């Protein structure tokens, strides 16, 4: 029964996500199977969690999951009718098969790790707690939870994408089960590897580079075994995957007339602040990059509407919190110029703490050093709009995260930094992989990958339905 329930829960995520994907892509672009799975999962978890929250304002009990299931199936039906063109098939070479086997083994180990570890501290007390309480209250978080000062430790103000993804599993299972709740996190790891492989192929035209980078995801301890990693039940790793999808799609959207990826970018962008409060900073950065791409590629002004869904989610959640009288976060002082100027002396120690984190080998291995080399490669290609997008998406969140600590209300703000900086850096780490794979491929970002590679690239995406490419 448990297996069937899990199949139902995961199936509805994918069905709803696939429906949304076909709606966004509109048969304009050919997507590989890995891309279809990855985007279906991301859009599906986002949609289901949002639907649970929105309909939870109106109904609760058995009606809520029934209503959400009906909508998911309807979306799936839409997806079935608008099914995307099949991806181009070709036989993988020996190197790709070898790397694929390595990635598969790594995924198996991540699943194993997530089952032998418990949920991490924040995974239980910040995230799963909301799913648990909502399940016990008919699918809706009790109003008393938000106003209970005794539970302020669990951050009632945190958004609900991850808790309500867990809640969806609970509703299918018929009980709140901390063990099975963990299954969603290794799936985010799988989605991360799929995205790195798929974006690697689109960026460089070579599948093996994507597979190689996906294999190296496993060897960053902060991603696999450290506190806040993909196995701990924290929202940081899922947020990093949503950010990877957002920036990857925006990079692909820098190609002229590639609107399918721009719409996917808008959808992933909207979900960033819904996954974690820090996602608001990533949303600001990714939105600024989007504005840059719109202006640089001379797209019509209607593309600015891409920012609207995210703004709607941010404002709705704020409004909901104030209506529920949720307490304000106590970790930070009021953010104003006066506080900033009175705490300016923190900036240098904060920068040295950040530098220390970059060469924290047990946590990051040589990851940041490798990314620095990759950045050096890309600096010569700044005229292409994709390069500044990638570099901004990597560096600006780091700077903004660091500046946030200027407002830390902890008596020892460096302790605050020490406890959370590695998890904040995790948000941008997958973008570091995109930079690295471009550097490894030595591909000039501006020039499209040659068709004879037979990979599906961003450039090919807009013209791939021409007979020439069909034959290739």
């Amino acid at each position: 029964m448990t297996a069937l329930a899990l199949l139902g829960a995961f199936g509805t995520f994918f069905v709803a996500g696939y429906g949304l994907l076909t709606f966004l892509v509109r048969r304009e672009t050919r997507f590989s199977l890995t891309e279809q799975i990855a985007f279906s999962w991301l859009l599906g978890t986002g949609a289901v969690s949002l639907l649970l929250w929105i309909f939870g304002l109106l109904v609760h009990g058995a009606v809520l999951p029934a209503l959400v299931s009906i909508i998911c199936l309807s979306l799936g039906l839409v997806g079935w009718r608008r099914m995307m063109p099949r991806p181009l098939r070709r036989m993988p070479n020996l190197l790709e098969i070898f790397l694929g086997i390595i990635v598969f083994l790594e995924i198996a180990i991540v699943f194993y790790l997530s089952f032998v570890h418990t949920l991490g501290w924040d995974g239980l007390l910040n995230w799963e707690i909301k799913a648990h309480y909502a399940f016990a209250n008919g699918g809706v978080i009790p109003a008393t939870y938000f106003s209970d000062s005794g539970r302020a430790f669990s951050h009632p103000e945190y958004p609900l994408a991850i808790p309500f993804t867990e809640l969806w599993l609970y509703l299918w299972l018929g009980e709140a089960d901390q063990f099975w709740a963990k299954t969603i996190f290794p799936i985010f790891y799988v989605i991360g590897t799929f995205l790195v492989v798929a974006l690697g192929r689109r960026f460089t035209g070579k599948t093996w580079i994507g597979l190689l980078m996906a294999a190296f995801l496993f060897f960053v301890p902060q991603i696999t075994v450290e506190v806040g990693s993909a196995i701990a039940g924290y929202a940081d790793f899922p947020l990093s995957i949503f950010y990877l999808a957002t920036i990857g799609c925006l990079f692909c959207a820098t190609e002229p007339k590639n609107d399918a990826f721009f719409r996917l970018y808008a959808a992933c962008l909207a979900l960033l602040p819904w996954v974690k409060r820090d996602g608001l900073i990533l949303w600001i950065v990714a939105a600024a990059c989007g504005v840059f791409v719109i202006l640089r590629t001379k797209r019509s002004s209607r593309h600015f509407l891409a920012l609207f869904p995210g703004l709607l989610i941010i404002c709705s959640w704020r409004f909901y919190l104030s209506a529920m009288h949720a307490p304000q976060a106590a970790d930070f002082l009021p953010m104003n110029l006066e506080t900033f100027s009175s705490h300016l002396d923190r900036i240098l120690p904060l920068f040295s703490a950040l530098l220390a984190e970059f060469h924290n080998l047990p946590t990051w291995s040589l990851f940041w050093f490798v990314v620095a080399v990759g950045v050096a490669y890309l600096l010569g290609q700044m005229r292409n709009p994709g390069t500044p997008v990638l570099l901004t998406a990597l560096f600006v969140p780091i700077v903004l995260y660091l500046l946030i600590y200027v407002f830390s209300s902890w008596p020892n703000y460096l302790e605050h930094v020490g406890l959370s900086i590695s998890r904040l850096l995790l948000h941008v780490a997958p973008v570091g992989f995109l930079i690295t794979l471009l550097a490894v491929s030595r591909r000039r970002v501006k020039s499209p990958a040659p068709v004879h590679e037979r990979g599906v690239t961003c450039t090919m995406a807009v013209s791939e339905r021409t007979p020439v490419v069909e034959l290739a």
Partner: protein
Amino acid sequence: MPVRFSYGRIAHVILWCGLALASLCVSIPKIYSGVTQNPLHSTGPLHTCDSYLKFATGASVAAKDVISIFQSTTASKRIIIFTRKDDAFSSGLGLTAAYLASPHLVRLFEINGTHPDNELSKMNPDEVAAVVFCRINRPTWLPAGKVFGSGLEVVSMSEKVRR
């Protein structure tokens, strides 16, 4: 198509192969210890709470029993939880107890030392469903509650206690 070699290409390959090898050398010991150090935990619905309680008190599969005590009390009254300042185990136990206390409202008291007499004497017993002591000594005037391992005691405030 013949592959063309150049010094730049060779340097590029050597650089990235070197970085990849060095990364693997640094990462593998850490990943290996992460993979091998944890035995398989229980698979129950409350397995994370059970693991935390076992780690902090030594009591096995205790979360369900803690919940059943809370559920036997009046839901409209608060659960009072005492933890010790500067004691991570006590704090962790307190937060786990607060998690398990739903749907009751909770109030956490972090005190210096191990005697909460002052704070308890100021409370109205009619508003309290249960008191939880996390590595804190129960005052002798309060009847004994259910003890879980070493360091966690839950005193249900029945009518008898209030009198």
